[in-house]
């Protein structure tokens, strides 16, 4: 009959499946933010000119740093992979006595930040303040990053693959290497690359262990000459190492899925009996727990006991805790708010910009926090001097470092609300915004809560960017540990470190138990 009930002009301007303009604009802000470190290195490199750049990059000093950085990163990654796969297989597929308990124990080292573990070991003796010590300590604190995804892959995998391999004449070991491991390969690869990017980015632990790599060198250059060329050019070399690893990790993570053929639930499979290997396996797990958890915790306890006689530091504990939470809680809100449009774009409006905007933060996440902080200092003092030394600049750094955590937490819950739900809502008479408010929002609230909790925890543990960008006078648990431990005042550092570990342990424990409850055998 007629068309006057709606406005034709407005209606025609929008294309279907196209994202609304406001969403594109809000997604543009985080994209801009994460592009800063790349822009910083490019700009600073161009300012220095090719001659200076070449001279700096081919200094013998750079070569030393390169050897150290690569030696450390490759050794830790290889050892973490070995330990991570072995522990994952034992707790998921083998009849290891007490496997439920070991599942939690294997992951708990994540609760001890690497710089805290390093301080504990360093306080044990100078023998650990070497490259060998650094490889040992960082492996012990990073193998869970391989263990977790591989264990999840083994748990989610259809045991039929291995059964088929066995039926085709493969022995137990060959079935594992030819049927099981290839299935877990994307998870394994993503975990290993995550360790690698962490190694390229690690700063606090290496500074405390007195091992010279690019990150510690960049920090020293930055302290010697504020906003200098050397720091920028060393950052460029570090980026050249970290960027491919970050890109590859992101690609692998995208492809993560556990193929199942056919409908129906995967059958459970009885765990493989370990036989004579039971006792050696238990001994191995005990040794691992003693080194990764026991040693740092024991040293912390020791220094707490020594320090409590001094009695000084306890009074500083509350301001530091307040400082941590004062940065972490608003920081988590800011990062979640910035991550929301990216997650919405990625799940609701596929397209070249959406996919670029969605992926870029994952790449920057793999870049060293130190370089991100340097980039923000560089741009702040040039374009927004009033922002320098404010919490806002630090929140920007947190956003660059932690956006992917917010994105994946939000996307996980957004994916549980397929666009079809909104369509049904609209067919029942709700407007686009109404459908979002009544259908999408109630279903993603748990995801938002999870994102906030996770980000708060990560920001409390964050050292490097906080150290460089926190407003003058703000002290956090992490910066207090670092400054005391860096000057050898181990007893003074211990209370802050202990509180940090206690705060971290709760969510790590809860996440592991939850994963355990979701799919557990009796």
């Amino acid at each position: 009959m007629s068309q006057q009930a709606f406005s034709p002009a407005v209606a025609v301007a929008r294309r279907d499946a196209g994202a609304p303009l406001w969403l594109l604009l809000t997604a543009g802000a985080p994209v801009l933010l994460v592009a800063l470190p790349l822009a910083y290195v490019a700009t600073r490199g161009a300012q220095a000119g090719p001659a200076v750049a070449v001279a700096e990059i081919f200094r013998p000093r750079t070569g030393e740093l390169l050897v150290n950085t690569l030696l450390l990163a490759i050794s830790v990654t290889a050892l973490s992979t070995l330990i991570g796969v072995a522990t994952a297989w034992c707790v998921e597929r083998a009849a290891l006595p007490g496997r439920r308990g070991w599942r939690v124990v294997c992951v708990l080292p994540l609760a001890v930040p690497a710089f805290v573990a390093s301080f504990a070991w360093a306080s044990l003796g100078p023998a650990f303040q070497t490259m060998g010590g650094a490889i040992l300590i960082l492996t012990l604190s990073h193998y869970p990053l391989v263990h977790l995804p591989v264990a999840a892959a083994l748990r989610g995998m259809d045991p039929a693959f291995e059964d088929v391999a066995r039926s085709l004449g493969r022995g137990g070991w060959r079935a594992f290497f030819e049927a099981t491991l290839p299935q877990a390969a994307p998870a394994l690869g993503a975990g290993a690359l995550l360790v690698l990017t962490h190694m390229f980015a690690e700063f606090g632990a290496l500074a405390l262990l007195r091992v010279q790599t690019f990150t510690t060198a960049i920090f020293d250059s930055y302290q010697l000459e504020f906003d200098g060329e050397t720091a920028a050019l060393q950052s460029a070399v570090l980026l050249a190492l970290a960027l491919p690893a970050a890109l590859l990790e992101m690609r692998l993570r995208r492809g993560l899925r556990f193929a199942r053929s056919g409908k129906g639930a995967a059958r459970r499979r009885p765990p493989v009996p370990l036989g004579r290997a039971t006792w050696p396996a238990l001994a191995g797990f005990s040794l691992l727990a003693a080194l990764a958890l026991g040693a740092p915790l024991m040293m912390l306890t020791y220094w707490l006991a020594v320090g409590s006689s001094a009695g000084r530091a306890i009074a500083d504990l509350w301001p530091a805790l307040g400082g941590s939470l004062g940065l972490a809680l608003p920081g988590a809100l800011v990062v979640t708010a910035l991550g929301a449009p990216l997650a919405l774009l990625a799940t609701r409006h596929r397209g070249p910009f959406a996919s670029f905007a969605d992926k870029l933060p994952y790449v920057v996440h793999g870049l060293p926090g130190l370089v991100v902080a340097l980039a923000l200092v560089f741009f702040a003092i040039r374009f927004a001097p009033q922002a320098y030394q404010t919490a806002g600049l630090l929140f920007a750094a947190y956003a660059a470092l932690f956006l992917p955590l917010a994105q994946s937490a939000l996307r996980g819950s957004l994916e549980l609300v397929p666009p079809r739900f909104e369509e049904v809502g609209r067919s029942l008479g709700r407007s686009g915004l109404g459908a979002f408010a009544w259908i999408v929002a109630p279903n993603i609230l748990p995801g938002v809560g999870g994102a906030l909790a996770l980000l708060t925890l990560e920001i409390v543990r964050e050292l490097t960017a906080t150290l460089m960008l926190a407003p003058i006078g703000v002290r956090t648990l992490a910066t207090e540990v670092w400054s005391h431990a860096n000057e050898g005042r181990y007893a003074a550092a211990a209370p802050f470190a202990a509180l940090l570990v206690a705060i971290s342990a709760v969510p790590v424990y809860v996440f592991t138990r939850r994963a355990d409850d979701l799919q557990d055998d009796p």
Partner: protein
Amino acid sequence: MTTVDIVGARKSHGAREVLSGVDLAASDGAVTALLGPSGCGKTTLLRLIAGFDRLDAGEIALGGRVVSGPTAHLPPEKRRIGYVPQEGALFPHLSVAGNVGFGLTRAERRGPRIAETLALVGVSELAARYPHELSGGQQQRVALARALAPRPDVVLLDEPFNGLDLDLRRAVSEEVMAALRKTGASAILVSHDPEEAFASADIVAVMDKGCIAQAAPPETVYAAPASAAVARITGPTIFLDATMRDGRAETALGVLPTRPDPGCRDGAARLCLRPEQIVTVASGEGRAGKVTVRSFRGDHCVLTVAFGDLALPVRAPASMAIGPDEPVHVAVMGPGVAFSGAL
């Protein structure tokens, strides 16, 4: 309770044209099935009618009022449609009553409408349950109730029974369509299952390669398909090489009668038969052939019968005791449909 008129609807996803000029008229209160293979554009057409996507060209009118056209697009919430997607898509955070009440006003929600609609689809006792506590069939019924509660003019069903097991599927689809008919709403059902489409719909619109190839009552579409493609989409078919002469087809099974529509000129042709048209007869009648394979199917058996170079599947009673290499006589019942051009 309204008509749906689609004229020249076109739609591309990127460079791929999904709908290339669809014309379809669904009359008031009728159930129309969109039947076609996957990728033929039937779901795209349904989403255009619902208003979830926009037309590139053409026009869609509901009850005579243009809702999608070159200059206008009425948003889905203003179209008075009911939508039942695949797998139901019940809101997981709402109970059954909450889901069914979603499209109602606050006042209506307090009234008897929710209970009424639940009773209509036969799931009154489930009102307090949550979607994850329902079986697949129950979810589909609730999804229909949710769509019917606001008394829509047109109900759109997008392969709603796809997720169900085959035996459950027949029962649920029968009950759901019966409940739908009680409301008198017009309905458009997307399906790739001819049996479901025939059982549910007044008009079956067969879609192929982005167009409606034929829209007619189920019996017509099955017995007199407009093209070879329609014949294949609407059920099992057997094509015989034929030569047309004066409206009769000369084939390896003899000279056979053909339907006058869609009509076929003299010369080389393909004769389309349905498997049940080829039957075994007493010896001496029909054509003699030789059984090569006998395949038992429970309530019947299928014989592969060779006539020289030609091998045809022939349905026979399960009790028929016949083995390979034995002779059998076969006849064709009823007219076939001839299409010009050789196989």
